[in-house]
């Protein structure tokens, strides 16, 4: 499936579990400028709820989330 958003940075967290995807997303977001899009690829099923909570708590906007064959993709617009 084609990526629905153009991401400035892609983070591959496949094969890792909580808390690694959230910690890495937080670290990646810290190095990006507001308005940029971060793409996160994960396989931990818990990441579905975790990235909704991550967006709600940090202010980064969860633009899109999808799942295909056990692979989850998240697109976050970095908050200002």
């Amino acid at each position, binding site marked *: 499936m084609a990526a629905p958003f153009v991401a400035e940075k892609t983070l591959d967290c496949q*094969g*890792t*579990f*909580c808390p*690694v995807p*959230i*910690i890495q997303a*937080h670290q990646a977001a810290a190095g990006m400028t507001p308005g940029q899009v971060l793409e996160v690829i994960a396989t931990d099923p818990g990441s579905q709820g975790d990235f909704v909570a991550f967006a709600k708590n*940090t202010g980064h906007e969860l633009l899109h989330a999808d799942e295909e064959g056990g692979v989850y993709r998240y697109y976050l617009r970095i908050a200002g």
Partner: protein
Amino acid sequence: MAVETVIDPALEARIEELVNTKVQELFQEQFQALVSQQTRQQAEAKSGPKRLALVASKGTLDMAYPPLILATTAAALGWEVGIFFTFYGLDILNRRKLSHLQVPPLANPAMPVPVPNFIGAIPGMTAMATGMMRGWMNRARMPSVPDLLKVAQDSGVQLFACTTTMGVMRTKKEDIIEGARFAGAAMFLDYASEAQVTLFV
């Protein structure tokens, strides 16, 4: 000999009135300042970051993970986090022990490969079970306890070392990792009283 000063009653009444007015003004001024200060503090408390206060009381490898996972995740969410390491949990802050935490198979029916207690009691079984758990952790690419501690410290998690435990267990200050703060129950309770989430592990 008493000297009686005679004041014009009209003047006396005027002075009293002036004093009363001034006192009222001052009181209103200070009262308003106090109210607005409290309102401001309440507003700040509501808009400030959330706070997580954890107690880590266990020193086995498996029980070191939950508080560190919650703490590093909360920090990534932008929360303030403090962990109070007490009793065996203090081993997680002990520089000589934190890399060598173990998991006992004895009285632990939850091991993926169940170990009967009479076998779990044999010398070397704890080391074996620990080796197995480290293997599973590596396979799942989980960070180690020292790695998670570093992430926690880098993201501003406050680590409180229980001084009562240090006294009871004869732990030296030099054995506690750098950056940890020595604390008693009152200090932690004060910290926890402003937390939205408090958990005992």
